């Protein structure tokens, strides 16, 4: 299978005090396959968010090469932010619509699509509310709805559940998995590719097909672990715990 996104010798330095650089990422080589859920885990400072930002095009200042497969372009990307990044002056429905408006969709189609997303995420009653009127969990539902509305082929997620309470986070993870397993729901034929960053090992095991463990200072890929546990994953099984132990051994603070 041809890789969808290839990272070649990616490194990134942050200039801290104007003279001395801090190496955030050193020599990252990696291939993301089409339709997989690829998760980066690592402690803070390991550069996992930076990799995501480089891949998605948000970070342009880096060394190395990002190569995209033939079938994708930046318009096929979407991004779910840790702190939701909803625009406070727009209603929930308007927030979900921005990607559709940008794609010059007719007002009627935008409305139809937004209503579909509102319904999917149980937000029908909140379409005309402002983000400030919603709880954190509801806000991230809006964030995910906005990301899915444009039928993305690649969804980047930067610690999307870490601002939420554990119950809400679990519910949203299940919802995400359901959507990923039923791509026709978001108008796609093949499963979207999900590239996610987290610092929660259990979350990585629950979702990922492959897990890249990063170590800090400088950020490096320690190892890429294949997660062959069958879905739906049993969170309290022996195999789950064994994989968890293996990952914890790899993660060095």
């Amino acid at each position, binding site marked *: 299978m041809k890789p969808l996104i290839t990272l070649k010798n990616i490194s990134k330095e942050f200039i801290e005090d104007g003279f001395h650089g801090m190496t955030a990422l050193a020599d990252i080589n990696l291939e993301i396959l089409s339709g997989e859920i690829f998760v980066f885990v690592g402690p803070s400072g390991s550069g996992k968010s930076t990799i995501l930002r480089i891949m998605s095009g*948000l970070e342009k200042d880096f060394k190395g090469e990002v190569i995209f497969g033939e079938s994708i372009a930046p318009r096929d990307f979407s991004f779910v932010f840790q702190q939701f990044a909803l625009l406070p002056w727009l209603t929930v429905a308007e927030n979900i619509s*921005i990607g559709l408006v940008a794609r010059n969709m007719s007002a009627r189609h935008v409305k139809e699509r937004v209503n579909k997303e509102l319904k999917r995420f149980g937000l029908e009653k909140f379409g005309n*509310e402002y983000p400030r009127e919603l709880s954190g969990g509801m806000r991230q539902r809006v964030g995910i709805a906005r990301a899915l509305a444009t039928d993305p082929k690649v969804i980047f997620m930067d610690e999307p559940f870490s601002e939420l309470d554990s119950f809400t986070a679990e519910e949203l993870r299940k919802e995400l998995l359901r959507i990923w397993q039923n791509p026709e729901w978001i108008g796609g034929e093949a499963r979207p590719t999900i590239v996610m960053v987290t610092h929660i090992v259990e979350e990585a095991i629950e979702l990922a097909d492959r897990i890249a463990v990063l170590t800090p200072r400088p950020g490096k890929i320690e190892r890429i672990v294949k997660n062959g546990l069958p879905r739906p994953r049993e969170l309290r099984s022996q195999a789950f715990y064994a994989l968890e132990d293996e990952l914890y051994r790899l993660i060095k603070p």
Partner: protein
Amino acid sequence: MRKSHPHPYSHPHPNPHFNPYIYRSRLHRLVTVLFVVLPFVFFFFFAQFAKISSGKLFADIGISLSRMAIAYIIALILAWICAILFYQGRRAAIALPFFDVLQSFPTFAALPLASFFLGPSNTTVIIFLVITIIWPIFFSIISSLHLIRRDWNEAVGIAQLSGFAYFKLFLLPITIPGAVTGSLIGLGDGWGALVATEIIVGARMGLGNFFNLFSQNPRITTFGILGFLILIFSINKLVWTPLLEWSHRKMEE
């Protein structure tokens, strides 16, 4: 009676004394009408008292208000365009100190010279009003633009919002609080500058002409200034206070 209305805001207002029903009450309508009528009534009786034709007085007020309105619209548009062009990056580093010096330009020093060349025309008055009003609006919009959060920019970038949609859904709403605050300050400076400019230029109509005419009569001047303040108070209550509250509320997260 009150309970039959749906609550206008489902989220508590930051000011605990704020009564959301106030804008729907009979009292509010009554006070609004009062603010509209009061300046007219005052000026009508004032004209009787000062033994001048009320037609001439209202014409003076009307002409001064029109000059102000035209100057304000020009200043707002110019300030907005300059702020968008120069708020960040290398352009900001070069332009902002330049604008700061321009801001301190002693307008009234150049006024006699300008009126010598341009004559006591509307154009002269409007140009000098624009030069006075524009700066607070410009710098307030700049500071609004600096409140753009990185992830808002990124969300809009990933959605590929551009052109008119970017203007309407992103840039315009973000700059409204700054534009309103700046307008409040700018117009405050503008009212003073309006009368002074009209007097210095020697405009044949307008409030400057009126105050110049009665410069030897302290009673008429005092009541004239009082009427002027009532007018500005009304405009503030009817236009700027609601706008200010609305624009800041929109940006709340």
